[in-house]
């Protein structure tokens, strides 16, 4: 690699999505040249290393093609896709040396703040996220194209404000851990070749892990005996032999075999460790009973009134009890293990490592769990709380002093005063006057009543058309309050505009927002980089300004008002930015105006 140049075949891409122009990349210490294979293509590239300030590349081993991304001073980037990773590595090393040689370390030349520097070595996963986001979000893609590819913003700046989006994307990646299979391990079927009497079991690390998780006694036996007392192959042979004996459901035979072979005995007997765990769990069950009756206590509607008729149990002999395995027990335990999930996340190669890792994780679990003592205290507290039944308690005195009216007479006296006061005031002129004296009023009321008594109720009480009118009015009112209340029934202004205008306006709006965000965040200008950035942004904004004017003019008359309102807002935002820029420039020129000869 001592030669001063590197020549490799590469494809040159202007952006990540660009398919790339194939060509030949030639790099010397001071510049790099790309000659496209197609002589008519306009993508010839001749870049001096002085303008290159950093590089990134995709990692070998990821699914991405070998890319080398060189970013230049103006914020643009050149992406080269190589045929192989080794090619890319060669070029990358060369670029690094070239950059080092040209005397400008990537960090210093750009004058960037430290925050941006680590970004230059952007990881492949980050790159993937960005590409994915761009692919999914059309608007973002358009914005990216306009700003970054157009050279107004750099990639880093563009993505700097969107870290949240990237985070969200990355968290969307499924972090699911595959769990155990729900098929029971007793279903592991061996394969037989029809010739010999041998059966062959195929054990994968997954199966072994599941066996160890479900049968802690087997796990313990493995740890103690292999490889000291027996080989792994012997171990598994004995294990499957025991499984076979169990499958015959012959407890007596199991006892006989166990008596002969001590190792087999471990597999044949019931799992001690499991039993211990089960006993511990039983201790942790809540002894309190909730006496409140609910729908579940309604036994009268169940068939048989809730009594379950039992089949008689077979008489069993106690000495064979420990060799008997019940299906229910197996299924329950299997289900418990599967639901608990797998805790190991490592490469499962060797049985020994599996066993040890499982043992370690189990020890960690036990250490974290509640100790019995704490648990008992908790139970006692809970029990004491729950046995209080309201009706059985002695009446407590009220916890607070009751509100008492100190002197009832005060209250009623105030009422009397109020009545007297009221006699003079009548609140609201809304009350209409009753022209009649009380005698007349009562008289007229009595007349009404006697009229009804004499004539009966006026028939028909209500005319059909009035009833219909009432129905309609009520329906209208009810549906209005139900569906219409609180909703703005007006369509949004934007929807009324023709589609292209709306699209253009929205796009301009988003780009203006982005530009302004970067613009305002660059102030106060503290470095030449920021100065350059601000100038770039201002140029871009000045370009957008007349485009908005054009939109305003091109819109048909009926929408002109709405559009002009929207455009005016955008103009105002831009004007504020321009004003600030001008003021700042003046200050700078005033400050630097002291220097003679126009030094800046």
């Amino acid at each position: 690699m001592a030669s001063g140049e590197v020549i490799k075949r590469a494809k040159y891409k202007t952006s990540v999505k660009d398919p790339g122009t194939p060509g030949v990349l030639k790099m010397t210490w001071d510049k790099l040249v790309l000659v496209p294979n197609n002589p008519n293509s306009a993508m010839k590239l001749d870049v001096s290393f002085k303008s290159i300030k950093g590089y990134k590349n995709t990692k070998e081993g990821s699914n991405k093609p070998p890319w080398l991304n060189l970013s230049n001073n103006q914020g643009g980037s050149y992406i080269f896709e190589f045929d192989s990773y080794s090619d890319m590595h060669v070029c990358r090393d060369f670029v690094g040396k070239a950059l080092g040689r040209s005397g400008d370390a990537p960090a210093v030349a750009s004058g960037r703040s430290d925050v941006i520097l680590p970004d230059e070595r952007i990881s492949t996963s980050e790159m993937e996220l960005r590409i994915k986001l761009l692919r999914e979000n059309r608007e973002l893609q358009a914005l990216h194209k306009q700003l970054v590819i157009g050279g107004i913003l750099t990639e880093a700046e563009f993505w700097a404000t969107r870290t949240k989006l990237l985070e969200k994307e990355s968290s969307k990646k499924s972090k699911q851990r595959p769990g155990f299979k729900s098929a029971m391990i007793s279903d592991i079927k061996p394969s037989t070749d029809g010739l010999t009497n041998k059966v062959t079991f195929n054990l994968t690390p997954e199966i072994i892990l599941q066996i160890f998780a479900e049968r802690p006694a087997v796990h313990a036996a493995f740890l103690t005996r292999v490889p000291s007392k027996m080989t792994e192959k012997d171990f598994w042979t004995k294990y499957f032999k025991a499984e076979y004996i169990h499958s015959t459901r012959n407890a007596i035979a199991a006892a006989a075999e166990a008596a002969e072979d001590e190792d087999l005995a471990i597999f044949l007997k019931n799992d001690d460790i499991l039993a211990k765990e089960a006993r511990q769990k039983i201790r942790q069950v809540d002894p309190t009973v909730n006496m409140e009756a609910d729908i579940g206590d309604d036994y009268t509607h169940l068939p048989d009134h809730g009594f379950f008729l039992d089949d008689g149990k077979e008489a069993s002999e106690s000495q064979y009890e420990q060799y008997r395995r019940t299906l229910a027990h197996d299924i329950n335990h299997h289900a418990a293990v599967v639901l608990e999930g797998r805790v190991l996340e490592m490469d499962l190669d060797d049985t020994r490592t599996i066993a040890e890792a499982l043992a370690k994780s189990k020890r960690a679990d036990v250490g974290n769990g509640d100790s019995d003592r704490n648990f008992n205290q908790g139970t006692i507290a809970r029990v004491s709380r729950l046995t209080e039944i309201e009706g059985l308690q002695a009446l407590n005195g009220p916890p607070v002093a009751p509100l008492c009216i100190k002197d009832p007479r005060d209250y009623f006296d105030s009422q009397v005063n109020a009545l007297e006061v009221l006699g003079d005031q009548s609140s609201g002129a809304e009350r209409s006057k009753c022209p009649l004296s009380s005698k007349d009023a009562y008289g007229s009321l009595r007349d009404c009543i006697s009229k009804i008594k004499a004539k009966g109720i006026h028939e028909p009480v209500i005319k059909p058309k009035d009833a219909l009118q009432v129905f309609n009015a009520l329906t209208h009112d009810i549906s209005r309050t139900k569906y219409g209340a609180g909703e703005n029934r007006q369509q949004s202004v934007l929807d009324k505009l023709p589609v292209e205008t709306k699209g253009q306006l929205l796009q301009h709006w988003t780009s203006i927002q982005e530009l302004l965000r970067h613009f305002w965040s660059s102030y106060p200008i503290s470095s030449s980089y920021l100065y350059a950035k601000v100038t770039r942004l201002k140029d871009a904004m000045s370009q957008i300004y007349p485009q908005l004017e054009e939109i305003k003019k091109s819109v048909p008359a009926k929408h002109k008002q709405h559009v002009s309102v929207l455009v005016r807002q955008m103009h105002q935002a831009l004007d504020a930015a321009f004003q600030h820029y001008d003021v700042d420039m003046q200050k700078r020129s005033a400050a630097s105006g002291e220097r003679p000869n126009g030094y800046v």
Partner: protein
Amino acid sequence: MPSSSSSSAPTPAAPSKMYADDVSVVVVLLDANPFFWSSAASPLPFSSFLSHVLPFLNSVLLMNQMNQLVVIATGRNYCDYIYDSSAPTNRKTGNGKMTALSCDLVAKLEEFVVKDEKLGKGESNGAVMSSLLSGSLSMALCFIQRIFRSGTFHPHPRILCLHGSPDGPEQYVAIMNAIFSAQRSMVPIDSCYIGALNSAFLQQASYITGGVYLKPQLMDGLLQYLTTVFATDLHSRAFLQLPKSVGVDFRASCFCHKKTIDMGYICSVCISIFCKHHKKCLTCGSVFGQAQSDAASETNKRKTIRT
């Protein structure tokens, strides 16, 4: 203050056990204020009003055999029961022109008006006076309490207020007390207000207790309004869309002068409302401001001097 008269009576705050879903017990408060009915504020004459209300009451009893109806008349000076559907003294048949209910009710109503007039002092200062809504609300709630404590199975009662007279601010405290007690017993108060402007009391009552407030626009169709909105039982209301009040007038009256006020002073102990600043709460006697601590320190000083 919960207290049970019999061991089987439910606590007053708990809802009753219904033996069938769609039975209702309705307590109707009928406005019989002569000053309102004879004034220009009433949109229809009392006879028309009765001719709409009586068929409605009949139809309520028609909907279910077990329905119970109680009518309380709200007069100017007096309130009384004028009909109880479960009373054994009801007549069985009508008189050909009207149903039994209507005959009984009208007869009782006549007696009621006579008595109301007798109790009045005969004053009339030209303003339409309010009727005794607080009295009839309290009577209704007492009746409902009697139902609660009877121990038998009964459907959940509700109150329907057919009212037209304007609000009397002097009744504010009593009405609010009745409303809160209805809220606690979970008794909805529905109101059909046929007066000129909205009644703040009835709007608040329906809002707080979860009832329906209606101000009918077409008086000719009053019967239709009543049967559409107020005839159904409480259980079926879960499936129906009933008119919702868009706004509620929450104005209160001050406790000292009974003026309707929007802003005032409130005692932090008993939440009584006053229109102007007082040193002491008129309801609960708690002293406002610094006076308490000064009094305490004074007594301390006196004690030390003595010792």
